[in-house]
């Protein structure tokens, strides 16, 4: 079951915590907003991805199950 990360860009205020917790899939642009790798979350990173979702101060990160 592949899951993908998606950010709600309206809710996101660029704290940048997600990029610290999951640097393998999330980098920050030059204004501090997350750029998410265009790929499903690999199983080995599932735990970190869930942590990034739950710890986002703006609750702007979602983990969506791909169809």
């Amino acid at each position, binding site marked *: 079951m592949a899951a993908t990360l998606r950010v*709600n*860009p*309206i*809710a*996101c*205020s*660029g704290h940048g915590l997600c990029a610290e917790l999951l640097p393998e899939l999330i980098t920050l*642009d*030059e*204004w*501090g*907003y997350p*750029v998410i790798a265009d790929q499903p979350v690999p199983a080995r990173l599932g735990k970190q991805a869930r942590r990034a979702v739950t710890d986002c101060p703006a609750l702007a990160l979602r983990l969506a199950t791909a169809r």
Partner: protein
Amino acid sequence: MSPALPGPTMARPATPGPDTAGFSRLLPPAGHPDDLAAHLGRHGPVPYRGGAGRLIADVRAAGLTGRGGAAFPAYRKLEAVAAAGQGRAVVVGNAAEGEPASHKDEALLRLAPHLVLDGLQLAAEAAGAARAVLYVRRDVHAATRLDRHLTQRLARGLDRIAVGVVPAPPRFLAGEESALASRVGGGAALPQFTPPRVFERGVDGRPTLVQNVETLAHLALIARYGPDWFRAAGTPEEPGTMLCTLRQADGSVTVAEAAIGTPLASLLDLGPGTAVLVGGYHGAWIPAPHASGLRLTNTVLRPLGAFLGAGVLAALPADRCGLAETARVARYLALESAGQCGPCLNGLPRIAAALADLAGLGGRRPDPRVLADLSRWAGLVEGRGACHHPDGTVRFIRSALRVFAAEVRQHQLGRCSARSSVPFLPTPSGPSTDADWS
């Protein structure tokens, strides 16, 4: 408030009447507004089908697509809302017309209001809607006219569902579906994060059908004259006619109805022009010599990175600088960002400022790395907004850098080949306050 522009005038259709494959299906042949008596004389009463869903097969067979810009098949939204609505859906006719270069919705509502209102009733019936709304760009005169039309229709028993009129703020994004749903629900006209999509959960959380008013007018004709009649104009892939706002190089502005597939050269006088803007401010520039061989269809335009959008076609005069025009529009688009998403909020002003410097409008010499900066910022805003404003803005700017590449090189050397610096494309100065979204 009404725009301080000369009102769009009507191109006279060659062959009047709904029985022809001509250019006067939507607009009255003589160019005078159709009052209720004239409308009933021409088209007869509203052809209700007597139940939800019954009109949808005809709309599908006709191949009608949304005329607001996205060209999405109209039947699919109707089906989705009819299925999800359970009789509590909302139908909204969209005449926000936030695009400053477009006047076709305003012209349609002024000249053939009852065709739009018929279409709204028929769409409400097909979707099994409990509420019908007309969302119209804020304009006191238009609102007064619409109130009068609606009162007349109610008195004559033409409308089965009462229609509310909600004013749309004069903002570029006011007609974006999620912004519309928010505004009609009593909030600000700001784009929302999706999903849920508006057809699932829109106005007041109800499944909501949003159709451009021109789409509704076509629907009212399909309900009367049938899918085969509709397909007698246009191309097999893109049937029917569409309204276009034509902005000629001599400065004249007209709204015309054209069959899809019409040669662009028969709509625009491309003689002295340098380039054509197709599809409005989220559209693309095409060099005039290339455009003169093209037809008015998405099938032709999409491979060129362009699309019909809401039908704006503008022929840039030969004495103007396409780069300066693009820079002014880019500044307008940056100011029209809702400012909700970080990449759009940060990226569009930087893109606009760099373009202004390059065009010689900024009072600064362009940075030597300006093209690399523009390319990087375009990539950073694309696909990263809740709505498509950054994507459309980037499409427009990239096309300018491509089509006006020679002019870009001139500007990097501090030169400009334009002989006139008078702005051509309209860029309204914007609202008095940032909060004017309602």
